[in-house]
């Protein structure tokens, strides 16, 4: 039992904040992630994390709240990609690549400036890889509000989004403005990336966006089922990550806790790998017969 519940786990304030924030971010990421995977926009999602990194680094240098930096950065990137031409599949990769390159350059500048100013020790680590334990409790309401708005927007356009990812032409003939639906989705994707950047770091937010959604899509029988399952898998990953990271304090005699983001990603990746077990087993059985 000592392994499962290290002393103080249930009563620690930072643990409560970490669990609550992790759960909210995991749910938003999972829901947005299902559509990101279905629309094959994982690369766009990843590019947004690089823009979020630039935003976070800029915020760190200016001494502004990191969440604001992440969300503003990511939204700017989303708008830039839509403007360049992410709506046309052919130019999608190029638009994404250009924005990604520009953003990484900005990150380099901001990190350099911040390091020279010497104001923020450890902020580079926190922006890139996050730390659920170091999130200020007053960030929670803002994260909650952004989560609700994002999920509501997604619910509004969900069915139109699904049909336009099956066939944009069928959607257009059916009376859907695929352009507006695409723009709204890009904005929800941007906010979701901004939120998960706070939780597990800008670089790692792709894992929370794509991982649970991809696993759920493999296992579920319906899209609705995949959305529910992705939420569950995401919340399990962040919660288990928090628990393991908290517990890792006692794993070595030197008492250095390991980063929570590492454990979240481990759970996400292991879950995805497990979805292949039934496939392998089926292959083994058919091989024998």
């Amino acid at each position: 039992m000592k392994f499962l519940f290290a002393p103080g786990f249930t009563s620690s304030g930072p643990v409560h904040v970490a669990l609550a924030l992790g759960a909210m971010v995991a749910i938003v990421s999972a829901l947005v992630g299902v559509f990101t995977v279905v629309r094959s926009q994982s690369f766009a999602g990843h590019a947004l994390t690089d823009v979020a990194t630039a935003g976070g680094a800029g915020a760190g240098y200016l001494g502004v709240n990191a969440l604001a930096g992440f969300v503003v950065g990511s939204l700017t990137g989303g708008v830039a990609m839509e403007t360049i031409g992410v709506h046309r599949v052919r130019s999608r990769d190029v638009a994404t690549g250009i924005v990604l390159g520009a953003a990484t350059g900005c990150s380099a500048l901001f990190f350099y400036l911040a390091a020279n100013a010497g104001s923020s020790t450890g902020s580079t680590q926190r922006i890139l890889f996050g730390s659920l334990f170091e999130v200020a409790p007053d960030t929670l309401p803002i994260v909650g509000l952004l989560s609700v708005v994002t999920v509501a927007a997604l619910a509004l356009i969900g069915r139109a989004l699904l049909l336009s990812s099956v066939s944009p032409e069928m959607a257009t003939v059916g009376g859907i403005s695929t352009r507006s639906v695409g723009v709204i989705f890009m904005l929800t994707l941007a906010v979701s990336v901004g939120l998960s950047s706070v939780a597990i770091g800008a670089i790692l937010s792709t894992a929370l966006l794509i991982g649970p959604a991809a696993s759920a899509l493999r296992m579920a029988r319906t899209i609705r089922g995949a959305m529910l399952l992705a939420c569950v898998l995401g919340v399990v990953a962040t919660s288990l990550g928090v628990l393991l990271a908290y517990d890792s304090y006692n794993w070595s005699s030197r008492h250095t806790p390991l980063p929570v983001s590492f454990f979240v990603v481990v759970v996400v990746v292991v879950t995805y790998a497990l979805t292949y077990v039934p496939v392998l087993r089926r292959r083994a059985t058919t091989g024998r017969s």
Partner: protein
Amino acid sequence: MTTTPTSRSLVPVLEVDDVSVTFGGRAVLDHVSFEIAPGEFTGLIGSNGVGKTTLLRVILGLQKTTSGTIRVLGQPLRHRSRSLGYVPQKVILDPDVPLRARDLVALGVDAHRFGLRRRSREDKDRVEEMLDAVDALGFADARVGSLSGGEQQRVLIAHALISRPSLLLLDEPLANLDPKSVQEIVALLHRVSVQHDVAVLLSAHEMNALLPVMDRIVYVTNGKAASGTTEEVVRTDVLSELYGHHVDVLQLHGRVLVVAEPSADTDHLPSHATLHLD
């Protein structure tokens, strides 16, 4: 004069009037005109690359015309609200996405509405009815991406029909199907056209399979089109004028073949476009 129900139903479902489309100086469609009456089964026949897909896209409003007008039920394009159903040629359905056949059909009812309102009993019944109409009840709960080409075709037809369009357009629905599936899809389209009182406009590069069911043929080549019954259009004089050089329409054992003298500029001709005349 007052409009009686009879005279209203005589308004063509589709009027294509002197439509031209030019891409980079090249006329893809060159003054094309034809009409389709309610419930009519029309084949849009021509070789690959003669402008059939462009013509369908223009009718659907997915592409602009350079000149000419298109009316659906007497209304210009911008006022058509969901009066057309469409089955594109290439729909890539991912087997890794858990979208069931019945889900895709249901999206035809409410994908254009905002929100995630629960589907009413009536909507669900309508989905079942459409799945039944295309003989898809047997695989209604399977992922669409995992179905065969012919099965996916049925699901897409049900999706297009569920909004009760007056005209169903299909882009090369018979391409890439085995001969048995071709027969089945043609019979099915004819049946739903009659039962659901919907006109069908279907493009194909081979008219053979369609001859028993076609009320009208729109024969396209080099951006020009001739329209009428098969007896009116598939004739030596009509097709020779359309092609701009001599072609022969031959009758052999009750079948008709469209043949041209072999030469460099007739390579685009169908090598053995055959036609049954009973």
